């Protein structure tokens, strides 16, 4: 079933409420994200962007409300949802004890992708020559690049990325933005947070603006 034929939004949420430490971060939030959307979650530090993304990815449970993937509850269809989801959080999920290539191969294989493509994909993120370096011996940005490399191979339509540009240099950011455009053109969607300005055309980017609610 191709997404473009699907009548339902790729991911949607109804009446989401998130409470942390007795503070209401957001209340009765309704979200609907369709194929082709790039959604930037905006707001100052501590407003609840990461919390929202984790709820959408099914990593935390909201205080109230439901998240749907293709109109199905995500907790009821966990495996199907995860096959169609790529989430990258604050922590890159890269093991320092393995080489860049081993890390990427494992990540690809775990998500059912072709792990042979690892070497070629590392080239995309400018890690050529570092394939065999242990990840713990790489710089902050190179470390994150290993995690990001998965994006180039991913077939999952839903990308949820929490500050993907952290520690990435300018050329890298450009390249990522291009990749996002390509991804949504192919019928995927991207939900991301970042404190940097995106250089994507404004009409491409939808925004969810969170504000302090007390």
């Amino acid at each position, binding site marked *: 079933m191709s997404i473009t034929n699907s009548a339902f939004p790729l991911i949607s949420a109804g009446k989401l409420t998130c*409470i942390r*430490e*007795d503070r*209401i971060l957001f209340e009765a939030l309704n979200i609907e994200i369709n194929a082709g959307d790039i959604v930037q979650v905006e707001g100052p530090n501590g407003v609840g962007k990461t919390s929202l993304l984790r709820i959408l990815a099914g990593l935390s449970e909201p205080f109230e409300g439901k998240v749907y993937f293709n109109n199905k509850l995500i907790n009821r269809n966990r495996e199907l949802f995860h096959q169609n989801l790529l989430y990258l959080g604050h922590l890159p999920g890269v093991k320092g004890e393995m080489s860049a290539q081993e890390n990427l191969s494992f990540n690809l294989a775990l998500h059912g992708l072709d792990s042979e493509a690892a070497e070629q994909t590392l080239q995309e993120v400018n890690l050529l020559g570092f394939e065999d370096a242990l990840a713990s011996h790489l710089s902050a940005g190179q470390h994150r690049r290993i995690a990001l490399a998965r994006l180039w191979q991913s077939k999952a339509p839903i990308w949820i990325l929490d500050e993907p540009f952290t520690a990435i240099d300018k050329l890298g950011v450009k390249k990522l933005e291009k990749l996002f455009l390509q991804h949504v053109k192919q019928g995927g969607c991207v939900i991301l947070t970042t404190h940097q300005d995106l250089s994507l055309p404004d009409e491409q980017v939808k925004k969810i603006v969170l504000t302090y609610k007390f």
Partner: protein
Amino acid sequence: MWKWLHPYANPEVTYHFTGKILPWFVALTVITLSTGLVWALLFAPADYQQGDSFRIFYIHVPAASLSMGIYVGMAVAAFCSLIWQLKLADASAAAMAPVGAVFTAIALLTGSAWGKPMWGTWWIWDARLTSELILLFLYLGVIALHNAFEDKNLAGRAASILTLVGVINIPIIKYSVEWWNTLHQGSTVSKLGKPSMTIDMLWPFIFCFLGFALLVTTIICIRFRTEILARNSIRPWVRNLVILENK
């Protein structure tokens, strides 16, 4: 079957309901327990073999059996909270753990204080004693886990998992300790069998037992109310309640 439970599964209703019955429990506890203890200390006859040290019996046995009973209650609550996601079950399990731990400690302490004059030692690695000690560890583990999580709901779920794993463990421990023990030495001392008590010993015992059971219920009730407040602190009814009381 769960339908009739439904009105009480509302935290606000439960909070007010427990608040209403609490004074009655307190009164009943005070009456029963004081009657039982005075009877046990002053009027019950001394045992013909153990003399007045037998008076420890009147707290030791209620404490020991309650310590196990509370764990079973906690496990049932944990089960409900995991399967049906009943937040109130969670709160009651959290309320029971410290009470159970204290009663386990009391059983151990009174048992030791009884063991020294009777067996000549504070402690032996007997089956019953050992499994009671391990029960204390299980309680402490559950309490530590409750304290380790900041989020009460997460803490409740984590502790529920541990409680259930522990409850499977309890019969195993009891059984294994007995077997392990009999291999090395027959446990002769502690197996008194059921003491065929005379009626003038039985009545004070019944009163003490009931009194301690009521005390347990009362304390759990207080802690339960605390847990309800902690889990619902952003709800308007809690806020109003607090504001009203502060005025």
